[in-house]
């Protein structure tokens, strides 16, 4: 009898301890306001190496019905297992924004992130944001893209790298241009990269890279192009979404 009582005591103490230790998480954030809609400010459609933090944080904004920013609304981030957020939930700041740093899961593919807030009737308002995790081959392709392709195929300049896009008579296709690139088969892309634009009756401004890049390099580039294509290519990798 004594044994039994002490057992119950220990169990209840343990349960109490467990509930206490969890408490701060749930009570730390209490919304002081509620919005009507949630929109993305920045940080969507980023590419990151699988398992590593994305280069930029994801920022979402909560608005009320007229469309003005709401301060103090609670935003919760969720995604498939393996994706981590820092923080998992946040209150919107004075400009109505909530920011989180995202690390994608260890598998290559597209990850759907759900950012949600509650409206006045405590109904969940959700925003879906897509991020792309690159595997080994695609990361290799991205590196090759930065070295050889990006300066013509990317119209945007950075402080370190001036784009050559505007200088070209025939404009190259950005690698995210899914509508065009998705129509080309892997064999077509391989032919263009290896033998140059004229191989498919396209501009000779696209030189032949077949003697400079290895076959595996070309495959890696195609894997990268397929991974970042928008809308997703037919041969796109798996999509990881919240259950």
């Amino acid at each position: 009898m004594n044994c039994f009582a002490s057992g119950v005591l220990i169990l209840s103490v343990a349960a109490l301890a467990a509930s206490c230790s969890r408490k701060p998480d749930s009570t730390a954030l209490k919304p002081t306001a509620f919005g009507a809609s949630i929109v993305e400010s920045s940080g969507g459609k980023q590419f990151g190496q699988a398992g590593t933090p994305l280069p930029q944080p994801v920022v979402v904004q909560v608005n009320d019905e007229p469309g003005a920013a709401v301060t103090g609304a609670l935003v919760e981030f969720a995604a498939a297992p393996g994706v981590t957020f820092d923080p998992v939930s946040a209150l919107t700041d004075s400009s109505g924004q909530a920011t989180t740093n995202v690390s994608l899961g260890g598998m290559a593919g597209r990850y759907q992130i759900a950012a949600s807030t509650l409206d006045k009737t405590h109904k969940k308002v959700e925003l879906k944001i897509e991020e792309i995790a690159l595997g080994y081959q695609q990361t290799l392709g991205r590196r090759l893209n930065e070295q050889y392709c990006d300066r013509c195929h990317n119209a945007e300049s950075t402080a370190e790298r001036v784009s050559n896009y505007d200088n070209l008579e025939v404009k190259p296709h950005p690698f995210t241009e899914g509508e065009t690139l998705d129509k080309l088969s892997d064999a077509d892309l391989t032919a263009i990269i290896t033998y140059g634009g004229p191989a498919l009756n396209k501009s000779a401004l696209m030189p032949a890279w077949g003697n400079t890049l290895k076959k595996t390099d070309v495959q890696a580039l195609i894997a990268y192009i397929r991974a970042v294509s928008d809308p997703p290519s037919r041969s796109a990798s798996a999509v990881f979404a919240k259950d």
Partner: protein
Amino acid sequence: MKEKLRSLWQKLFGDSVRAFGVVSLVFLASMAIAPAKNFFSEWRHYQHGYLSVIRNRSDANTLRRHFQGGIQQIWLPDLGVVDRCTSCHVGLKEPTLTDVAQQPYRKHPVIPHNLDQFGCTICHRGQGAATTLAEAHSSTLAWEQPILPAKFVESSCGQCHRGPLQGTPQLNLGRNLLSRSGCVHCHAVKLPDGSTVKATDDPPSLSHIADKTTREWIYAWLKDPQAYAVTSTMPNFKLGDADARDISAFLIANSTPVPGDNVTLPAKASSDPIAGASLYGESFCASCHAVQNAAGNVVGGDVGPELTRIGSKVKPEWLQAWVQNPRVYDPPTGMPHYRFSDSQVATLTGFLLAKTDSDLLANVHLDAATPEQIAHGKRLVSDYGCGSCHEIAEVKKPENFAPELSRIGSKPITQLIFLQGMQHTLPDYIAGKIKQPRAFAPGLKMPQYTLTPTQIDALTTALLSLNDRSYSLPPSLAVAAPPESDYQPAGKAGKLMTDLACFSCHRINGHGGDMAPDLTWEGSSVQREWLVQFFKNPGTLRPALIRRMPKFNLTDGEVSELTDYIMTVYQSPSVDRDSMPLSGYSQGEIELGKQLFYGKYSCQGCHIVDTKTDKGYIGPTLTQVGSRLTAAWIYQWMKNPQALRPGTIEPNRAMSDEDAQALTAFLISQKGGGKQEAAKK
């Protein structure tokens, strides 16, 4: 109660025959049940799952044909691998299963190695022989090496590959940080091939620091290095006020002057901010030094120290001497000796001294140091191991100051002390230790570094690659790093090149920086007259580049010394400079070359020959290429650019001899005459 039990015992085991019968029955029953354990095993469950996943696919028949039930295993005795992972990860080698989100059925991503040759655990760790999920993936009492989280998996590449790899950016960054952040000054890191990881940073000597700066600045710096410069790599030792006071007292008292490193110029430090900014720009100081702008962005290179608050740090006379000739104070510095005139030194010094921050030293008030404080400071300097990184007169470089990290990637978890709330895994421990080294126990000496989460993950990756397996794998698998070169040019020209710090930016014979072109074959590549002019007035070859060759104000004698040396010594065995003439090509050849340039090869996409029509911004401008390069170099470059400069992005077009000849004729006829004529008009 007892009566009943006794009668039951009597019934079952009353005599030997009866007992034998009962035991036999129990035995038979358990023999019959035993296979059920196998039937309900986890891997069988996953294999059933696999069959239902593939059932409705269009390639179901093929996949079913490939499927083999039962426990699968990859056995590689040479590597010590017995991996049964493929018992559950059934679709690992099925090329069509890339789109399956449900694990463990997805195809393994493309990697350069064959699964059958390396197995799984060499890269992913975990317990290969296990046939249940928990035993294979997690730490158990008998096996403490769990699965390596995906974000650290590049560390496993580093077990064999000692040098940088294209496909492992994180490992490359981590290894770079390991040598660059000063880790190896205190922690020895030996590699399986017997070499040690060398530090690539160059912390300044503190033996003459009183010439350079004040005690107040040292105090503020010690308290918070990043308050002075956000990009500073000096870690924060979290010193108390008294400790910082005493260390600064010791360093100043211990400092000895260097003759000539303080000069007073005839011209006073000028305060002309416009002339200063333009000289700072013209001299391309920003190629190496960064400055934080009003928006908080750090703009500029990271070769030299950040200069945002330099005026609050240095003594004016020291800065003047430094700008005049940095080699007086620090002979091996990577800063070039610019040969500025006195008035230029005054202008630049004035410009730099204006970069101050009144907040930095506002609250620093130090009384004159007492001998006790100095002695205490000296003791602290040796306690904290300052001498591991910095040269300090009277202080010996400590040996084995911190634990060796040569096998940190295999450290048993039982030997680790974890923080509360931390996952008990080795990667978490290493990352946590880098992130907050002092949190693990009171009195620890490792300072606080300012590293981003990405950098911490990269360093953790590099450290995890230093493990037992990198020693136990067959040495034949090891891929050595490209050998380091300590090439130094000889003679007078060599001294001049050291004085100008050419190797801070240029690489020659495998030694030097990568900011500027490799000059190993420069003597075969360029014409002598062009090189002379370039030294006197370095123009830019690539319009889109921000970082450019500065003007060093060389004398005619110095220019011809350098030019002669480069033209004679830096020659490629595959390019005979004199084998092709610089002029005299037929008009037909030139015309054919022009057609090839604009048509078949469309070089104008990246290069400019005619400034009116061409816009290419990637390669060097070729308007004067006929006065710059040798014809033989152009010809060989057309044939195979990577053979002359490995890694160049100019594509190899596998040109025929005729095409290469015609393009050479066309390019060598571009002497830049049109521009000169226009200038004359």
